[in-house]
C-alpha cells in the first residue's frame, strides 16, 4: 500500500539506472537528507550533536571506506586506525603549514595522502588472502602508530605530543577549533558524508565496483575474464584509505579537537570493522546502520538506568553494558547474519507487498 509502484515506468536508460528508481524512495531520501541538514542544528542540543551525531557521521565515513575494501573488494583489513591516523596527522601538518588553505581542501589532500599510504600497505594483498591479510594489515597499523609516536615532526615538535585542530573558517563560519559551534561542525561533517556516500554508491554500482566484487567472489576467475587484480586491489586500498583518511581528519578537526596516537590505536580498527560487519558487508546503507549501532547503543545503555530510575554503580553499569552489547551483537547475527542492511532490505520488500503476503 505504501509502495504502490504501479504507474511508474521509465522512458530513458538514465532514469532506469537511477539509484532510487521508485519515486517514493527518492522523495523520502531527499526529504531525509534535507531534514538532516536543517533539523538537528536547530533542534538538537549540544550533547546530541557533539556526542552522538558528529561521531556517527565521522565513523560512518570510515565504515564506508572499510566497507569498500572489505565488503566489496573482499580484502579484510585491520589497518583502519592507522589510515585514519595518516589522514589526521597530514591534515594537521597541512593546515598548520599552509594556514591560508581552505579546510575542505586540507581534508581532501589529507585523504589523497592517506590513499597513497594505503596503496603502499596494500601491496601484500596481492599475495596474501583472507584472515592472513587481516593480520598482515595489523603490521601497517602498529607501524604507523609507532611512527607518529616516534617522530616529533608530525606533532610540530609539541612537548605534549598531541595534535590540536587550529580554528578555520568556511564561508566565514568557524568550523574547527574550540570556538566552532557543534552545529557548524555537524553540517560540515554531514556535507562530506553525503557527497562521499553518493560517490561510493556510484562507484560500487559501476564498473569499478563490479570488478571489486568479482575479485571478492572468485579472484582467479575474475583474472581470467580480464579483471586486473593488481590494479583492482590497489584501487580498493587507495579509495578505502582515502575515505578513512578524511574520516581521521574529521575525527580530530570536527569531533575531538585534539588527539594523540591513542585515539587511532588498534581498538579503532576493530571498532570500524565491527561497524562494517554488523551493518552489512557490501552495502553502503550498512555502513551507516553499523556506525549508528556501535555509536548509539553504548550511550543508550549507559543512560538507560537513569531513564528507568535505577541507581546502579558506574562500574557495574559498564560491565553490564559490555555484556549486553556482546549479547546484542550475537542476537543480531543469529537473526540476520548478513547484517542490519539485509534486515532493512527485507523490511522494504515486505513493505512493498504489504498488506499482501506475496
Amino acid at each position: 500500500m505504501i509502495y504502490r509502484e504501479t504507474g511508474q515506468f521509465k522512458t530513458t536508460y538514465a532514469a532506469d539506472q537511477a539509484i532510487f528508481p521508485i519515486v517514493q524512495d527518492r522523495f523520502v531520501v531527499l526529504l531525509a537528507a534535507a531534514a538532516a541538514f536543517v533539523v538537528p542544528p536547530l533542534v538538537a542540543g549540544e550533547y546530541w550533536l557533539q556526542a552522538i551525531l558528529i561521531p556517527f557521521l565521522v565513523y560512518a565515513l570510515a565504515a564506508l571506506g572499510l566497507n569498500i575494501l572489505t565488503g566489496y573488494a573482499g580484502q579484510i583489513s585491520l589497518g583502519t586506525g592507522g589510515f585514519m591516523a595518516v589522514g589526521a596527522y597530514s591534515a594537521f601538518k597541512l593546515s598548520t603549514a599552509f594556514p591560508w588553505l581552505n579546510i575542505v581542501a586540507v581534508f581532501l589532500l589529507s585523504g589523497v595522502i592517506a590513499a597513497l599510504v594505503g596503496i603502499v600497505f596494500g601491496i601484500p594483498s596481492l599475495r596474501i588472502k583472507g584472515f592472513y591479510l587481516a593480520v598482515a594489515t595489523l603490521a601497517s597499523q602498529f607501524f604507523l602508530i609507532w611512527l607518529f609516536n616516534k617522530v616529533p615532526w608530525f606533532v610540530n615538535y609539541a612537548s605534549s605530543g598531541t595534535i590540536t585542530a587550529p580554528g578555520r573558517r568556511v564561508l566565514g563560519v568557524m568550523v574547527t577549533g574550540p570556538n566552532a559551534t557543534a552545529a557548524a561542525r555537524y553540517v560540515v561533517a554531514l556535507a562530506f558524508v553525503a557527497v562521499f556516500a553518493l560517490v561510493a554508491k556510484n562507484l560500487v554500482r559501476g564498473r569499478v565496483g563490479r570488478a571489486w566484487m568479482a575479485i571478492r567472489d572468485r579472484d582467479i576467475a575474475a583474472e581470467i575474464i580480464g579483471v586486473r587484480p593488481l590494479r583492482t586491489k590497489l584501487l580498493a586500498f587507495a579509495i578505502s584509505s582515502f575515505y578513512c583518511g578524511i574520516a581521521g581528519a574529521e575525527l580530530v578537526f570536527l569531533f575531538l579537537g585534539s588527539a594523540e596516537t591513542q585515539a587511532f590505536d588498534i581498538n579503532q580498527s576493530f571498532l570500524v570493522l565491527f561497524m562494517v560487519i554488523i551493518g552489512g558487508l557490501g552495502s553502503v546503507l550498512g555502513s551507516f546502520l553499523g556506525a549508528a549501532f556501535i555509536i548509539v547503543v553504548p550511550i543508550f545503555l549507559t543512560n538507560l538506568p537513569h531513564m528507568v530510575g535505577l541507581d546502579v554503580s558506574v562500574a557495574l553499569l559498564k560491565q553490564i553494558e559490555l555484556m549486553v552489547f556482546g549479547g546484542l551483537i550475537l542476537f543480531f547475527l543469529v537473526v540476520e547474519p548478513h547484517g542490519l542492511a539485509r534486515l532493512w532490505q527485507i523490511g522494504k520488500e515486505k513493505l512493498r507487498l504489504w498488506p499482501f503476503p506475496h
Partner: protein
Amino acid sequence: MNTKRFLIVLLAAAVVAGPMATVAPAQDKGLYVPLFVYRTGPFAPSGIPNANGFNDYFNLLNERDGGINGVRITIEECETQYDTKLGVECYERLKGKGTVLVNPYSTGITYQLIPKAPVDKVVMHSMGYGMTASADGRWFPWVFNFPMTYWSQASAFVKYVGAQEGGMDKLKGKKIAHVYHNSPYGREANPTLETLALQFGFELTLLAVDTPGQEQKATWLQVRRLNPDWIYLSGWGVMNQVAVKEAAAIGYKMDRMVGNWWSGSESDVVAAGDGGKGYKSMTFHAAGPGFKVHQDVFKLLYDKGKGSTKRELVGEVYYNRGMINAMLNIESVRTAMVKYGNKPLTSEQVRWGFENLNLTEQRLEQIGMKGMVRPLRVTCENHEGNGMAAVQQWDGKKWTMVSDWIEPMREVVRPKLEAAAVEEGKRLGYTIRDCSKEK
C-alpha cells in the same frame, strides 16, 4: 520470525529514542561536581581506589560539616575507562548540569578538554598529570595542575639521587636509566632529565617500552647489560607490575629503582611479591590510614556503613590521593567563598578560588591532613603551586616515606615550562595575560 521481527523493531526504536531522554539537567541547590572515574578497563586497579578516596572525602564533608560552609556537594560518577572518547561523552553530558569544576583523570581526556575550558568556562584540575605547560597560569587561566608537575618531579628525583650518592657533584659519571611508557605521558620527564644530565654529568639512557608493556624482556635485558646505578620508571597500568617483577627477576637492587608517582602504588607491586620489597617511588603525599582525617572517615562513614570501599583499603596510596584531590578542590572553593560568600558559586568565582588557594599548615591541621601533604600556595603565574615531592618505599606490606620533602629545581624547570607554555598557548591562539592587573 514474526515475534522476532517485532522485537527487533521495538529494540531499534528504543535505541533511537534512548539518548533523547538523557538531556534532563537535575539542578540541585549546591555544588555539583562530576567525577570522571575509571573503575573498569585496563587501568581499573589504579582508578578504583582513587575514585573511592574522592567519594569518601566528599561524603565526609557532607556528613561532618554539612558541605562546604553549609553548601552541600553533589557528586556524580561517570565511567570513562580512561578512554578519551568516553571522557568527551561524559563531559558533554554532564556539562549542562551546572558543572563548574572537572577532574579529567586521564592525560588524553585532559588534552581534549583544555581547549574547551575557557570556552565553556569550566575549571580543570589535573593534579599531577595532564599538560605540564598549563602550570603557567598566564597562558592557561582555567587549567590547574598543582601540587606538582612531571618536570618538577623529575628534577626532584635527580635531587634525591644526588642526596643518596653523597652530593650533587657525586652524580658525575653515574648511570641513570629512564624506563618509560612509549606515549606522551611516559616521555614527559625526558627533556628535563636530559637537561639535568648535561648539567650534572650523569649518563642518561632512555628505554622506551611499547604499550601496554605486558612483555618487557628486551628492555630489562638491556638494563641488565647497562647495569645502571639508578632507574627511574614512568609507567602506567600493567607496565608497572611487569617492570617491577622483571627488575626483581634480573636481580636489580630494588632500593635504587624509583617510580614516578603514577608508578608507585599497592597494585603495582602486588605481582612482584617479595621481589618488590625495597622498590621506591616519588610521591607528593603520604600513604597510610594513620591521619586524623582517616579517623573521621572511619567514624562518620565506615562505622555507619557509608564507606565506598572495604575498611582495610582505606589509606592506600591512590585512595589518599583521591582524598587529597577532593580536599584541594574543596579548599579552593572555600577560598572563593571567603571572597564571594557562602553560596553555590559560579565557575568564574571557583576559578578565582583555585588561583588564590593558600593552604596553610594550620588549615591542614584543622582538616586532619597535617603531615599527609604539604602546605600549598597557588598564584596567577604559577598554577603548579609550590608543592614538594618525597620518596616512599614499599616494604612488602605498605608504603612508607623514606625521605624528607624535596624541593624541585624550580630554576631549571620554570624556564622550560614557560617556553612550553608560550608554544602551547600560541598553538591554541591564546594571548598571555598580565597577572599584575588582576589583583
